[in-house]
């Protein structure tokens, strides 16, 4: 349900991750073939094994976009091929829609938004959740990323979103189509952060059901602060 990209290497040990078949707080639990550890798909936390308590590093978010959009922005892209030797449950992710947490969420969750509203989560300290639909109205919002000036953005017209550290000397960015632009005329791809004058430092964003984010990040901050009225 949630696309998250991790660096699968810790302290020089490369890990090969598989699907354990277990769920924790309605999220996939992964295992690694090298050390037989268990890992949370949602947060990257080591749950069991020699790396328990360590965290996989989450890499800048991978946007979910229509193929047409990704190809137009990245003509040299490669595309994953089907693996005919294996078959999976194509409807498995539906499972995550059928959890008890979604039906009986904590009161605080319901006060802020509909539990199944989509939020864009920033796995920072403290974690932050942005209401996706509301953010689309603003398109770009500044925030403090643990002491560094950053922006989070979500397109009104297309499905992509992201977050990026503001480059030196830039105090705001605007979103125009698929481009992030600064007042001094520089621009970057909002999908990849690539630009002619250097790349933006993109930050990981976790799109998620609001209740699921809260399950994993009970100390989260929420935007807009007072919640959204249904």
């Amino acid at each position, binding site marked *: 349900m949630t696309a998250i990209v991790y660096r699968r290497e810790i302290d020089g040990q490369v890990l090969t991750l*598989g699907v354990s*078949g277990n769920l*924790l707080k309605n999220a996939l639990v992964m295992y690694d073939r090298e050390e037989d550890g268990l890992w949370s798909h949602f947060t990257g936390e080591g749950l069991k094994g020699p790396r328990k308590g360590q965290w996989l590093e989450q890499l800048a978010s*991978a946007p979910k976009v*229509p193929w047409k959009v990704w190809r137009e922005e*990245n003509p040299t*892209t490669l595309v994953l091929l089907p693996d005919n030797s294996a078959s999976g449950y194509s*409807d498995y992710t539906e*499972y995550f829609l059928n959890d008890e947490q979604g039906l009986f969420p904590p009161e605080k969750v319901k006060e802020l938004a509909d539990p199944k509203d989509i939020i864009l989560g920033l796995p920072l300290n403290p974690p932050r959740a942005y209401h996706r639909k509301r953010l689309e109205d603003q398109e770009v919002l500044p925030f403090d990323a643990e002491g560094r000036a950053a922006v989070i953005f979500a397109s009104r017209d297309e499905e992509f979103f992201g977050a990026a550290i503001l480059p030196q000397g830039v105090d705001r960015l605007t979103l125009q189509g698929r481009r992030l632009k600064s007042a001094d005329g520089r621009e970057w791809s909002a*999908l990849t952060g690539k630009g002619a004058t250097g790349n933006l430092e993109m930050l990981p964003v976790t799109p998620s059901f609001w209740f699921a984010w809260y399950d994993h990040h009970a100390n989260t901050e929420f935007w807009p602060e007072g919640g959204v009225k249904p």
Partner: protein
Amino acid sequence: MKGAGWAALAAGAGLVVFGGVVFWTTRPADEAPPRTRTIYDDIDPEVPGMKAAVGRDDIPALWDPQFTTADKAFLDEDEPVIGLAMGKDVKAYPLSLLNSHEIANDTLDGIPVAVTW
């Protein structure tokens, strides 16, 4: 959708659904009575709250993903993909494939990554 998801999961894993709660039975010994557990049972005291849904590798992660170029990809224009750009490496992971595999173990720009869904 909701019902179909459960049905597909149950059929695939050999589970039985009663009123939204999933049960399955095992016969560990010849004469032992069937042992029934619900999907809501914790399965590992070291990881409180962890439940078993299906078996390990029942959903097969991609260990060695194969790619083609954009001009050879037979994707619908509107088919959703997860796009990833690191250094000079740019790749698209069709959501339909990530649904079936959940995890793709890959390497981009020399960095081992797992694209998870």
